[in-house]
């Protein structure tokens, strides 16, 4: 008897669609985060979102809403810190402390919800195979919102990121733009965490973006390459995970490193 293809199952179809949506977000927003040297934000935002997701579990509401709410709060906080005159090292230190506190709060919320181990695993490592149609609808909405926002911000964001002094001299506000961008990044990281989990969302957002920057591609090509890389990691990871029975985050995280190593090799040989 012929074994049915993985695409015959609705949960796998949902997973592929979810990965596609999240790859659009991770590739584009991740590239901008790296361009602006905000890789730490990409790491911290989903961790901060974890505490909200855990609180949502405790309150019996969808973890995604909690993740979105606290990620956006985190984005506002980081944006505010970006406006202050602190040295970047001090800013990172404060972000790190908030990140650590968020993990602690998340653990407490899960403990109070009496479901610590299974829920924690889901929130930290994602649950792409558990995506249902309503969740996909929310993901699609988030994707539209983030990509629409990014398209609107695109020119001033690129200008202020690549020639900050000149952009400021032309009247652009680095702090306002930075804050708006971090709100988009927070939304995107909440969506990515739904697939890759709070811990490994970083791989999906930063791995492919690092590859396109390593290759020295122009912004438009760089974002396309980054989206393609994220798609390769997430779809490739899904397929490998189906056949190997090893969880998806394992393949995403290792794939990110592998892609970067390949890009470095290509760059050196060209």
């Amino acid at each position: 008897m012929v074994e049915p293809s993985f695409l015959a199952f609705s949960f796998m179809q949902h997973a592929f669609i979810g990965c596609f949506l999240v790859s659009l977000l991770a590739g584009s927003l991740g590239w901008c985060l790296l361009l602006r040297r905000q890789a730490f934000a990409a790491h911290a935002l989903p961790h901060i979102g974890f505490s909200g997701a855990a609180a949502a579990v405790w309150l019996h509401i969808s973890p995604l809403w909690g993740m979105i709410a606290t990620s956006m709060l985190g984005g506002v906080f980081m944006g505010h810190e970006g406006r202050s005159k602190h040295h970047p090292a001090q800013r990172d230190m404060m972000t790190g402390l908030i990140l650590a506190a968020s993990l602690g709060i998340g653990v407490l919320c899960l403990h109070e919800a009496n479901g610590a181990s299974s829920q924690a695993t889901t929130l930290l490592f994602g649950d792409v195979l558990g995506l249902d149609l309503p969740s996909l609808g929310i993901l699609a909405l988030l994707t539209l919102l983030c990509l629409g926002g990014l398209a609107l911000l695109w020119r001033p964001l690129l200008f202020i990121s690549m020639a900050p002094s000149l952009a400021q001299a032309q009247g652009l506000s680095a702090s306002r733009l930075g804050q708006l961008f971090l709100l988009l990044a927070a939304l995107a990281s909440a969506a990515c965490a739904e697939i890759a989990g709070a811990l490994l969302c970083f791989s999906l957002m930063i791995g492919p973006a690092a590859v396109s920057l390593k290759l020295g591609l122009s912004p438009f090509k760089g974002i396309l390459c980054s989206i393609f890389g994220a798609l390769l990691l997430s779809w490739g990871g899904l397929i490998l995970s189906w056949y190997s029975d090893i969880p998806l985050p394992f393949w995403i995280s290792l794939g990110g490193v592998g892609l970067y190593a390949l890009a470095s090799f290509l760059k050196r040989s060209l």
Partner: protein
Amino acid sequence: MKEAHLSAQDVSLRIGSQSILNHATFALPLTGLTILRGHNGAGKTCVLRALLGILPHQSGTLLLLGHPPDVARHQCGYMPQKADQTAPMLPVISHVMACLNGARWGFPFSSKTTRHHAEALLRDVNAFPLAHRPLGCLSGGERQRIALAQALANNPKLLILDEPFAALDAQSHQALLQLFGQLYQQRGVNILITAHGPLETASLPLPVREVTLARGHIHG
């Protein structure tokens, strides 16, 4: 040629406790090349930043090109003393393209036009062969020319350059001065710079004026 002028009426500019301009009143034509001099710490950079509306002055009326700084800055190009160290891995052409209509909202759909415009700017500053090199691989002088192309992106009437000679050797000094002359002749753009050392400007094909910032005033 485009006309340019700067006027101040009873302008005070302070940074913390330091007074940069103290009820200063002056009128300066900025046509050609204007060199603003002053000792270290006199506040030359602050004056440039005030002209661009980045630093607010405390009192008086400051008019650049006949407008207050926050209006006039849209007709100015600016190059800071220290070039921004951003995205060194991206090609030079992308850095210049990012400055074209960069203050407008939305996604640019005509990237071919933007690219041609950026290439023309690079030709104007004799940096077209660098277009596809990563910015981080350029020398100080090459980086300076790219910053100049970026400053020219919005077709300014006035270029405001903070210490453009600071990181250059003597040979590059002369090349940059020649480039100023070329930009003035070809694009009609006027240039206001700050500088420390002596500059050989006698053979330049543009009017040159030196002014000094001292004791809270700008002296012609």
